[in-house]
Every structure is written in structure tokens, then in C-alpha cells.
């Protein structure tokens, strides 16, 4: 008798929670892609000594401290210790960029600092240097909850991201939502379908044998449905990220992740 009451209560509580109206874009039972991985891959991500993404983080640390460009300043020259100044930054990106009047992602912000403060040559998308710096900065937020900024100026871009997420595209005529909202946990061929949360980027993907960005992942999904993928840096990819981060709010940053 005594053992049953708490369980009943817990059940009732769960039922109430399930019935309560969740904030827009929120989903119950939110899960990182890591939850769907094999124990081997999870162990690889969890152990810094075996996580290949840590090489990018270490490269990023070196770049953080290296003077660059006409100004001869390093990132550290302005920001000091990344462990304090960059802590939490990745949890709130993409953020609104005053200069362009648009959202900017973390890699874009790094590029802007390089251009305007260091007066250095731009780093191409997916270049090892940009991936390393982004991984290093994002790594400073590892373990912190994703907390998108409540900035009204972002709303229309996030809304466009949602629209892109729900739009069927490509010869296979599928939307991101077709796969990641309704059918997560099912298998697409040999791969388990994740919920599609951008919690761990840049990350090491065994299939790539490299560390890559979220934009690379999103382009892969688009190419997979035989759609014309948005170019690296395209506003649409940043709007998608904005929506995905809102959808992932509360999950913890894992950078650098490992994925199959």
C-alpha cells in the first residue's frame, strides 16, 4: 500500500506535465543525438583522450593566443582567458548582429572579429582554422544548457527557420520535420533517426573522418533528400540554426561531439 502512493503521484504528475502546454518549438522528451549512439561512440565522446574532436579544440586554443593580421593582436589580446570570457557564449548563438541587421552564427562572429579587430584575411567556411576556433569557443560552454536569447529582433528570422524546417524539399519531397519531429528513434536504413538537435557542433563525424560544422551536417541532410543545398554561410542555414537552437533549448552543449 505505502509503496504505491508515490508511484501514483509520480504518474499523475507526469500526466499533468504531458498535458500542460509546452512553449512553442518545445518538445517533450528532448534528446541529444548522443542518446541514440552506440555505447562505443558515447564512450569516445565522453573521454577527452579518445575524442578526436579534442584535437580541433587544442588547435583552437593555439589560434586563440596567436597574434594575427595587420593589427597583430590575438583573440586573447582582446578577450583574455576564454574559459571566463567565452563561457556560455555558444549557448546563446546565433545572436543578432547590429552591423548586418541579421542573425550571425558563432563562426560568423569569429570571422567578423578577425576582419574588423585583427584586420586579418578571412578564414574560409569549414577551413581547419575556423572549425578549430569555433570548436574552442563552443567548448567553453560544454555542459551548459542551450539558452537562446529572447531578442525580439531575432523573431522573424527564427520564424523563417521554422518555415524552412517544415518545408518539403528535394526529389524525395521530405522536410526536416518529416524525419526529425515525428519519426525520431526509428531507423532510416542502418541509422537511428535523431531528433536533430545541434548540441555538439563542431563535432567529429566518423563518416567524415573529420571535424565539421553544423552547416555541413544540414547540407548533408539536404543533399540526402536530393535537394539543392544552401551554400555555406547562406542566411537560410543560419535561420535554420536559430530555429534548431530554440527547439533544443535546455539541452546541454556537448562540443566537441562525436557522431557516427
Amino acid at each position: 500500500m505505502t509503496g504505491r502512493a508515490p508511484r501514483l503521484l509520480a504518474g499523475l504528475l507526469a500526466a499533468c506535465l504531458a498535458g500542460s502546454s509546452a512553449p512553442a518549438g518545445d518538445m517533450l522528451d528532448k534528446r541529444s543525438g548522443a542518446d541514440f549512439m552506440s555505447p562505443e561512440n558515447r564512450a569516445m565522446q565522453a573521454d577527452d583522450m579518445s575524442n578526436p574532436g579534442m584535437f580541433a579544440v587544442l588547435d583552437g586554443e593555439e589560434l586563440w593566443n596567436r597574434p594575427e593580421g595587420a593589427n597583430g593582436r590575438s583573440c586573447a589580446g582582446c578577450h583574455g582567458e576564454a574559459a571566463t570570457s567565452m563561457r556560455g557564449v555558444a549557448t546563446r548563438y546565433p545572436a543578432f548582429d547590429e552591423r548586418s541587421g541579421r542573425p550571425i552564427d558563432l563562426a560568423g562572429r569569429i570571422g567578423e572579429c578577425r576582419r574588423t579587430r585583427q584586420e586579418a584575411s578571412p578564414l574560409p567556411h569549414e577551413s581547419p582554422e575556423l572549425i578549430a576556433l569555433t570548436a574552442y569557443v563552443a567548448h567553453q560552454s560544454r555542459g551548459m544548457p542551450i539558452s537562446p536569447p529572447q531578442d525580439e529582433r531575432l523573431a522573424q528570422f527564427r520564424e523563417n527557420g521554422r518555415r524552412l524546417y517544415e518545408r518539403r524539399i528535394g526529389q524525395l519531397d521530405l522536410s526536416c520535420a518529416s524525419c526529425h519531429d515525428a519519426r525520431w528513434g526509428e531507423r532510416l536504413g542502418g541509422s537511428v533517426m535523431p531528433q536533430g538537435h545541434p548540441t555538439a557542433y563542431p563535432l567529429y563525424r566518423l563518416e567524415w573522418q573529420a571535424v565539421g560544422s553544423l552547416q555541413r551536417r544540414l547540407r548533408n541532410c539536404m543533399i540526402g533528400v536530393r535537394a539543392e543545398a544552401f551554400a555555406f554561410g547562406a542566411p537560410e542555414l543560419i535561420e535554420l540554426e536559430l530555429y534548431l537552437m530554440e527547439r533544443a533549448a535546455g539541452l546541454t552543449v556537448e562540443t566537441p561531439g562525436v557522431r557516427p
Partner: protein
Amino acid sequence: MRWWNSLCVLAMLAPPAAAEPLRPYVVEGDAITRSLTGRPGDAENGRRLVMDRHRSLCILCHAAPLPDPHLQGTLAPTLAGAGSRLSEGQIRLRVVDMKRLVPDSIMPAYYRTGGLAQVAASFRDRPILTAEEIEDVVAFLVTLKE
């Protein structure tokens, strides 16, 4: 497993279907009774096609009585027994254009080029499978009796 990657490679190497105009067909009820080519398909080639995860993609979503069940998807009902549950004509319509029956289906229409957005250049204006290939796939599914 590595299907996205393989798809990219495939997109560059081999356009999957010749860009010939679609052949007309008649839908009667929930079936297309007549062969798209006017000839019966080749079930053996159909089996190969259904197994081909890069070309037909069927087993990315469906299980089927074919090798490597651990690489078969769970997004759709199994194809085992399809030939007992459905007539040849019903199978044909489902492969040609499932969305006529289930408008919000995730199953791609295999013999349609219109009503699609943002299709990659190498796949534009081509159906996923040719009329011959559809007939081969249909001929194979008909043999899947329970």
C-alpha cells in the same frame, strides 16, 4: 549508415534516370491496372533495385525479405507479404505516387516530376525511377506472398 555520403557520390557519378517525358497512366480507384511500359517487368531486376539503398531507397524506410535486415528501415510497413495484401495495380499506384492515396505520406512519388521544391540540378525533371524500373519493382513486389 553512410547513405548520405553515398548519395552525394551517386549524384555526381550517375544521374539515376534518363530525362524522358513521363508516360501517361490511368488511375482506376486505388490502382493503375496497366503496365506503364505495356510490358511486364523483370522481377529479378526489381529485387536488385529494391535492395539498392542508393538508387530506389526502398529499404531505407521499409523492411523486406532481403539480406541485411539490420540495415533496413523502420519508417514504413514491411514489404513482406505486399503481393498478398495488394493487387499488382494497387502496388503500381503506390510506387508511382503514394501521395494520391496518403497526401502527407513520407513515401516519395517514384514516377512524378512536378510539385517538388528545390530539387538538386542532377535530379531535376527526372522521376526517381524510370517506367521500366517501376515495372521491375512492381513485378518483384507481386512475388512477395505471405
